[in-house]
C-alpha cells in the first residue's frame, strides 16, 4: 500500500500497549486515536527518568535537581516552539489541555481593555463543526459580555459553508475561532484563507489545532494565526498538558488569566505586577513531568516526520473509507475525498445504534468511539444524535482496518440488520 510508514512494524514496537490483548485474548485494534493517542516507550521512559532522577520544582529551585528539572522543562518549550515554527519560545504557554488553552483566550478577552477586549456589540465567529471546547468558552464570553455569537454553517459534504463569509466576518467581529481539522467529520479547513479574511477586519484568529497537531506539519507563521491550541495526549504525549501558542505582542497585552506563584513580578498585599509571557499565564507549579513527556513525544513525531505521518494517515484513511464503502447500510459523515480530511471517520450503521456498534466491535478487540464526540451541533447538522468513529494513527496497519471491517460485518449479523 502506498504511503504507509516504511518502518511500520518497528514503529508499532515503540508502543507497548499495542501488545495487549482484550476480549478473550484478541489483539487490541486501537482505532480511537482522535480521542487519545497511545504513548511510545520513549515518552514513558522520559517521564520515569525525570521522576526517578531529576524531580524538583522548576524556576524557583536553585539546587542541582532544580536546575536539571528547569532545564528539562524549558527544553520542552523549545521543542514545542520548533514544532509550531513559532517566532519565539516565549510565545509557548503550557496549559493543562487544549480546552484550557481556548478558555484562556476567551477569559482574558473578557477582562481585557479596549481594543482587545470583547464587549457589547462585538461579534465572535465560530463554526458548526467545532468541538464543545471551542464552542462553550465563546458562549460564556459572549453571554457574559453581551456580545454576539455567530457561526459558519456546514455544507452537505461536511465542509465549512464559506458562501456567506462576508456577512459573517464583519467590522465588529473581534474573534474568529475555528478548528483546523474536525474531530468528527475529519474535514481539514482552509485556516490560512479564513485568517486572511479575519485579519482584513482586524479580528483575532484562534485556531484549534487539537486534531491537526498529531497529523499535519504546523507553521503558525504560514497560516498567520494569532492564537493556536493543541493538547499533549493526542500527540503521543501524556494527559495533563496542552499548549497555547500566541503572538507575543498579544500575550503581552492580555491581562492575566490565573493568578498565583510564578506568574508575578512582584506582589504586595494591595496589588501585584506580572511576569512577561509565557510565565504570566502559567500560575502555580506547571505540568513539569508532563512537559518532559510532551517534549519527548514531539521529538518522536518529528523524527518520524510529520509529512510521513500525514501520508500514512491518508493511506490508512483511504483504505478505511474503501472498506466502509463495501459495508451495506453504512453512511460516512464528512468529506468523501481523503485529500480533504484527517484520519477520523464517523459513520452510521442503519439499524444499529452507535453504542451497540462500539460494544460489538469491542467484543472483537476493536476500540472505537461512539457518541457525539463532543460535537453535538455537528451531529445535529447532519440529523443524527450520535455516530461511531474510527480514528487511526501512525501505528495503525491495513490489517487492523481489515479486522475492523470484519468486526463491523459481524456486528450487523449479530443485530440481524
Amino acid at each position, binding site marked *: 500500500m502506498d504511503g504507509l510508514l516504511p518502518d511500520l512494524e518497528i514503529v508499532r514496537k515503540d508502543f507497548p500497549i499495542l501488545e495487549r490483548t482484550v*476480549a*478473550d485474548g484478541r489483539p487490541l485494534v486501537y482505532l480511537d486515536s482522535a480521542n487519545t493517542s497511545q504513548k511510545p516507550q520513549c515518552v514513558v521512559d522520559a517521564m520515569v527518568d525525570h521522576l526517578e532522577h531529576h524531580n524538583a520544582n522548576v524556576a524557583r529551585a536553585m539546587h542541582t535537581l532544580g536546575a536539571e528539572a528547569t532545564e528539562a522543562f524549558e527544553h520542552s518549550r523549545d521543542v514545542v516552539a520548533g514544532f509550531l515554527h513559532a517566532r519565539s519560545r516565549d510565545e509557548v504557554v503550557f496549559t493543562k489541555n487544549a480546552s484550557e488553552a481556548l478558555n484562556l483566550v476567551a477569559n482574558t478577552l473578557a477582562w481585557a481593555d479596549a481594543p482587545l477586549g470583547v464587549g457589547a456589540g462585538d461579534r465572535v465567529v465560530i463554526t458548526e463543526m467545532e468541538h464543545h471546547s471551542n464552542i462553550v468558552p465563546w458562549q460564556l464570553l459572549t453571554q457574559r459580555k453581551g456580545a454576539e455569537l455567530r457561526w459558519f454553517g456546514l455544507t452537505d459534504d461536511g465542509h465549512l459553508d464559506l458562501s456567506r463569509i462576508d456577512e459573517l466576518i464583519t467590522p465588529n467581529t473581534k474573534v474568529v475561532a475555528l478548528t483546523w481539522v474536525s474531530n468528527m467529520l475529519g474535514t481539514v479547513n482552509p485556516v490560512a484563507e479564513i485568517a486572511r479574511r479575519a485579519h482584513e477586519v482586524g479580528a483575532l484568529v484562534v485556531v484549534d489545532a487539537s486534531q491537526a497537531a498529531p497529523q499535519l506539519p504546523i507553521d503558525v507563521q504560514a497560516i498567520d494565526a494569532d492564537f493556536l491550541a493543541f493538547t499533549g495526549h493526542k500527540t503521543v504525549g501524556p494527559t495533563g498538558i496542552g499548549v497555547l501558542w500566541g503572538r507575543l505582542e498579544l500575550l503581552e497585552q492580555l491581562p492575566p488569566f490565573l493568578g498565583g506563584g510564578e506568574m508575578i513580578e512582584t506582589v504586595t498585599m494591595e496589588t501585584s505586577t506580572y511576569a512577561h509571557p509565557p510565565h504570566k499565564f502559567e500560575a502555580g507549579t506547571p505540568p513539569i513531568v508532563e512537559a518532559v513527556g510532551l517534549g519527548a513525544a514531539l521529538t518522536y513525531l518529528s523524527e518520524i516526520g510529520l509529512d510521513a505521518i500525514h501520508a500514512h494517515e491518508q493511506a490508512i484513511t483511504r483504505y478505511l473509507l474503501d472498506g466502509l464503502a463495501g459495508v451495506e447500510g453504512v453512511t460516512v459523515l464528512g468529506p468523501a475525498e481523503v485529500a480533504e480530511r484527517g484520519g477520523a471517520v464517523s459513520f452510521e450503521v442503519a439499524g444499529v*445504534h*452507535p*453504542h*451497540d456498534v462500539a*460494544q*460489538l466491535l469491542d*467484543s472483537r478487540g476493536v476500540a472505537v468511539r*461512539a*457518541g*457525539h464526540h463532543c460535537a*453535538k451541533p455537528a*451531529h445535529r447538522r447532519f440529523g443524527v*444524535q*450520535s455516530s461511531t468513529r474510527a480514528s487511526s494513527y501512525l501505528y495503525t496497519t491495513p490489517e487492523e482496518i481489515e479486522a475492523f471491517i470484519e468486526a463491523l460485518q459481524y456486528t450487523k449479523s*449479530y*443485530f440481524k440488520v
Partner: protein
Amino acid sequence: MTQQADLDAMYQEIILDHYKNPQHKGLREPYEAEVHHVNPTCGDEVTLRVHLSADGTVVEDVSYDAEGCSISQAAASVMTELVIGRSVADALKLHETFLELMQGKGTVEPDEDVLEDGVAFAGVAKFPARVKCALLSWMAWKDATARITSQGATPKETS
C-alpha cells in the same frame, strides 16, 4: 465467563425484542410532569411524562419519546410495562430493586417474579459503561414522579 458470553448475556432476545418493538412509546396526555434527561457522555435522550391518579398514589400512565441505544430503549419499554398501573410506592421499590441489580457488577441474582422482563438486564451490570443506559429512563421516571408528589401538580393537557 468469556466476554463473548457476557455480551450474549447482555444482548438477550428480550432486550432486542423490546428495542425493536418498544411498549408504551410516544408522548401522551394527560400528564402532571414532563422531564427531559440526557446521558451527557453519549447523548442518549429521553423525554418522559408521568400521569398519576388524582390522589397521587397510583401510576396511571408513563409515556415517552427516547433516542438511544438498544439498552436504553429496551429499558424504557420494560420500565413502563413494570410501573404502569402500580402504586407509586411499589413502583419506587421496583426502581430500587432494579438499581441494585444494575450496580451489583453482575453479583446480584434477580428475582423474575419481581422484575419480570427487567431480569433480562442482569447482564448489563457487567458493563459499567452501559449501566447508565439502562438507568436513564428510570431516573427520568423517578424525577418526574418526585416533581408531581412534591408539588401536588394537577394534570396538564395541551389546550
